[in-house]
């Protein structure tokens, strides 16, 4: 699972500290399945951004397949 951020600098900034977002490994979990995903996050405030593309795409697929296990 990977968010496609390549080649485009994120237009989003952290509201809290005003800083730019950076790509980094983030832990995610669903139904006992653990994943590490490269996601955009605020390196200072640690807030992580999930795009619709990821939520409705690969993430949904993984959720569905875990639900059917």
């Amino acid at each position, binding site marked *: 699972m990977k968010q496609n951020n390549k080649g485009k600098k994120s237009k*989003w900034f952290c509201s809290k500290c005003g800083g730019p*977002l950076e790509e980094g490994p*983030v*832990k*995610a*979990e669903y139904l006992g399945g653990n*994943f590490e995903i490269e996601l955009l996050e605020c390196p200072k405030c640690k807030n*992580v951004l999930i795009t619709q593309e990821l939520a409705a795409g690969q993430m949904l697929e993984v959720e*569905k397949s875990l639900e059917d296990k």
Partner: protein
Amino acid sequence: MDLEKLLSMQKLCINDNPAACVTECPIHVDVKGFICEIRKGNFEEAYRILKKRMPFINVIGLVCDHPCEALCVTNTSGNAISIHELEKAVVIYGSIAKIKTLPMPKVDKKIAVIGGGISGIICAYDLNQKGYSVDIYEKENEIGGSLLNMPEIILNPKLIKEEIIKLEEQGIEIKLNQEITPEKLKDITLEYDAVFIGSGEWNEKFNVDEVTMQTDTEKVFAGGRIVSGCESVIQSVQTGRCAAVSIDRFVYKKSLTALREKEGSYKSILKVDMENEKISPRIKPENGTFTKEEAINDALRCVQCECHKCVKACVHLQKEKLDPKAYIRTINQNERIILGDHYANKTINSCTECGLCGAVCPTSINMADIIKETRISMVSRNKMPLSAHDFALKDMEFTNSKYFELIKHQPGKNNSKYVFYPGCQLSATYSEYVIKTYNYLMEKLDGGVGLYLGCCGAPAKWAGRQEQFDSSIEKIKLNLEKLGNPIVITACSTCFSNFGENLKNIRIKSLWDIFDEKGLPLGAKSGNGKILAVHDACTTRNEKGIQESIRNIAKRLNYKIEEPEFTKKNTKCCGYGGLVYYTNKEFSREVTQDRIKDSGNDFLAYCAMCRDLFVLKGKKTYHILDLIYGSGKEEISDMKVPTLSDRRSNRIKLKKELLDSLWGEKMEIKDEYNDIKIVIGQELRNKIEDELILDGDIKRVIGYAEKTNDSFYNPENGHILAWKRFVNITFWVEYKKVNDSFNIINAYSHRMEVKGV
């Protein structure tokens, strides 16, 4: 789930049973199968199918006396499919078919066949195929028996000779001019491993076992006319074949009688619905024999018997390409998967549990019952996909919370002879009608009419959450006890059936029966003879009284009633049943569409969800309360359908209004972020509706983000992107603040939990 129970249901399905033409044929030629090939013009494949069951095919195929035709389901006024003419055509046009045969290993056993008539030839043919060495003893100077007496136009003697030569080439020895007397038989019996007598006449009497064709003499079997007692060619074939099976078993000392119930003609149990079949007249061969084209056209008249009444009626079974037998097999497999995907979960969660399959099935196999059990089993094994029914269950929780639940005696009374239970969806769509109805009931009924707002537990039941359903029913039972066990008046047929089935000793009445009995309120507008197609709710399938009341009310208001093909006990689902509306929205829409096509007239429904789903698909539909309390104008038949968010706020509003206007009580429930003003365009509205995102979810995300500043912002356009996780879903909202309201740009959600860096 109880596997035995499932398997036994599977056995009840009659669809796999052969058609009457096949069971009536003494040797069970796959008539339906070869006709199917003729329809495609494939005579060679038809020949292969015919040959599988028919020995000595090039002769028998031309002279069979076809008892099948009399039993053909199309045999009304003499129009049965010309099965015999078709089999002739198959022999004529298909015998060039290449058929691969594996040479049977020779068996070191010798069989004597006495009499070279039809049964003798068949017995010899079958045993030769099994590898035996067979000698035919014939008293005349050629074999063929009664075949030789056939008119030349039916059977050319030259052809018989050719076919007999083939028998000899296969290794059958034919001994001509050999009359076998009872004395000679004794010698032959000693010399051979078994003997078959098919001589047509025999001067000694012997008893022949009907099932095995064995005579009193163990080694001697008999067949043909002396056994069948008739001239039927195909019966003689059957006795020869039957004896060959017995001889084979006898020689190898196997049971002669085991598993022989279905040899010879028997009655087919397949039921075929001919009501809507139009049978065109028989096609007569212009020149005595069918041309290929004539054969194809006659074969096209065949209805290709099958039952599949359920499949024909149910769009779910059609879509999944499953009949009950295959479906039960699929469920069984899905239940047993230990490693790997439960591939059938989506299928199982796409049944509307409407019960139509059970209503039309000749053996009453009701997939709804099986699916209900399966879902319960999935939940109990923790294998039910979490997302499938989550929204509906949360909605049920909401409906049974302080936001909607209300249990009251009639204002000014301390007891209730009745209690009105409008249900959750009528309250969400037609809150105004609910108030009017309650006032009507209080006016018409003596002894006090209480009010109970809540959910009957249907979502838990559909979701297979048995425990949750049971506890919800238990709670309702206690609440009714507190009210003094009044007669429950339900508007919703799902509430009616859930209460009726699960609350012991409940006294229950449908609101529609009350309207029918007590008369309609003054001011109800006339329908002026407008025709409406009644759509019965699937949960009233077996409630004739409710169905009648609805029709009576409509007729009294001067509407004309159209009964669609699927009506009353055979009604179809609207697309909401079994929570399919949430689990498989795309398919739910197909179910709605499938129902809509059943009539060109506007619909009359009496379940709020049925009405809403039809209207969403563009079908003008009146709710029965539209007839009673509506303006009489056509617009109400396509009145806007509330969104999922509207449904919740309408329920809150209804409770608030009732409490205020009838009991003078103020409802004080305040949500922290409820007053946030949001603006959502229609396109996004449709998207969030499909993705089951509520306005309340959006407001809470914004409220939380505005308070904590936990969000992202885009300096180019001033948009904010915020998120908040509620229970098991993270909602994301992209928005822009404009004055004192928030324009919603986008909203989406996911279930996976991001744990951070």
